[in-house]
């Protein structure tokens, strides 16, 4: 299954001008448990989906209470600096939509 088919929310936003975070909220508890148990949502696979070095994926945290996963990625260009593509970081979730779980 693709990640995009398993979620209620998949969004991105800056945590600060240098870091974009992706929130994934799964549609139900069973789906969340299955994804967590699969071990397929890792920093290495996230880095591959974004075609970035793994060091730029700062965190992948599972959050049981919200049936959610939090990912933090160091931005290439800080928000609003010359060459920036997304000041708020709101459209940076897309490479995860097709991640195979």
């Amino acid at each position, binding site marked *: 299954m693709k990640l995009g088919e398993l979620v209620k*929310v998949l969004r991105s*936003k*800056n*945590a*600060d*001008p*240098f*870091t974009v*975070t992706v*929130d994934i*909220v799964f549609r139900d508890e069973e789906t969340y448990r299955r994804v967590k148990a699969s071990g397929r949502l890792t920093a290495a696979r996230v880095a591959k*989906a*974004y*075609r*970035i070095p793994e060091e730029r994926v*700062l*965190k992948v*945290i599972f*959050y049981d*209470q*919200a*049936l*959610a996963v*939090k990912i*933090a990625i*160091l*931005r*290439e260009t*800080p*928000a*609003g*600096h*010359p*060459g*920036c*593509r*997304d*000041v*708020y970081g709101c*459209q*940076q979730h*897309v*490479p995860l939509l*097709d991640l195979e779980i």
Partner: protein
Amino acid sequence: MKELKVYAPAGHLGHGVPRDSLLRALRLEPDFIALQGTSMDPGPYYLGSATMPHSLEVIKRDLSLIVPEAVERGIPFIFSATGPGTDNLVELVLRVLDEILREKGVRARVAVLSGELSKEYLRRKLEEGVEARRLTPHPSLPETLRLRDVEEATHIVAQMGPEPIIDAIKRFRPDIVLTGRALDVALFSAIPIMMGFDKGLAMHMAKILECGSLAADPPTTSDGMFAVLRRDHFLVFPPNPKRRATVASVAAHSLYERTDPFMEAGPDGYLDLGNTTYEQVDERTVKVSGSRYVELGRYTVKVEGARLAGHRAVMVMGARDPAFISSLDYILEESMRRVRQVFGRQDYRVYFRIYGRDGVMGGSEPLPRPAHEVGILVEVVAPSRERALGVALFLRSTILHLDFPGCITTAGNVAFPFSPVVLDGGPVYEFNIWHALPLDNPLEPFKQKLVELPRGWRA
């Protein structure tokens, strides 16, 4: 006091405060109202240029709804304003407050707290050997703050914690507290901490309320949220009957805009949500307990600064011709080669964003295939306005008439929507300070004063 009732009329000043929700909340008799109004989300331009990304008209409208109601009922109102929260913008909002109170014939005592730091102050700190470490390990930031970063910045602000607000409330007993740049949670947690409520619960409540009803279902930052803080828990619900707070909406909010859902750094410790529990007490209300604040025995404020990075010229072009689109990379490379030939000194930077291909995500785009039509956004950043406009204008004529293999459009290659073709994007700024400054005294950098409004009023 057994409980404290708190209202956030919206998630941000200038996003539009809904009147109905405010009136409902006022019937619940809040002990104070707070509203965040500063943010770095719109990027470094606003801090660098000390301007705001909001309409002053909407700010006045929002404040006109809240201020007279709060002052006449004796409900303290604590808010930060506006944009980057530099001193000039605090003074601008103070003038708006003056106008509102004059028009309504209401008097108020306003405690005004500045969040802007003088270079002199920071120079002294650095000379004393204070080490301010960067808050994010990004290569564009120096690991520790240097004198030259301070000198280069055009404006520097610090996010005050709850302590300067508590101090101003104790000292002045004001009707209104207006701050410059502040921690959003400080606006909501100052009074609870002052009154001896649990700091963990106060900070977590503040974290939820600061975004208004973003933690409600359906979520938005342009509606309000109400909380009742007690000794061992707090309740949270939106006054608007069209929304409700659910365990999922409230728990998920602790994900928002942060890198770690269990822990949030504060000036003197961190908020630990590892043992927080959420309970649905009725259809619209969630009870939160178990959040703790862990004190680390040292105090730091987050310091933010921006410096001038140059001047920006912007050009927008559309392309529809299939041969042009399939040769796009060659065309842009060849155009840049000609730019380098003509403009000698490489003191300019050129960025292309190809909308319809990978404009939003660049190298991370999973499907970098061009559509049948693409938009090309050209950004040139150079040391001067003339240089930036000059490079962009030369790129205009070069791309328009470039001969590429398979070209049949010999009269012109691209569609420009505007005349002028090249737009002056004004000065460009970049964040160069994003550091934690250790303080012995949390009040030290923040100037405060009491202002009685309307100015020159005689009853």
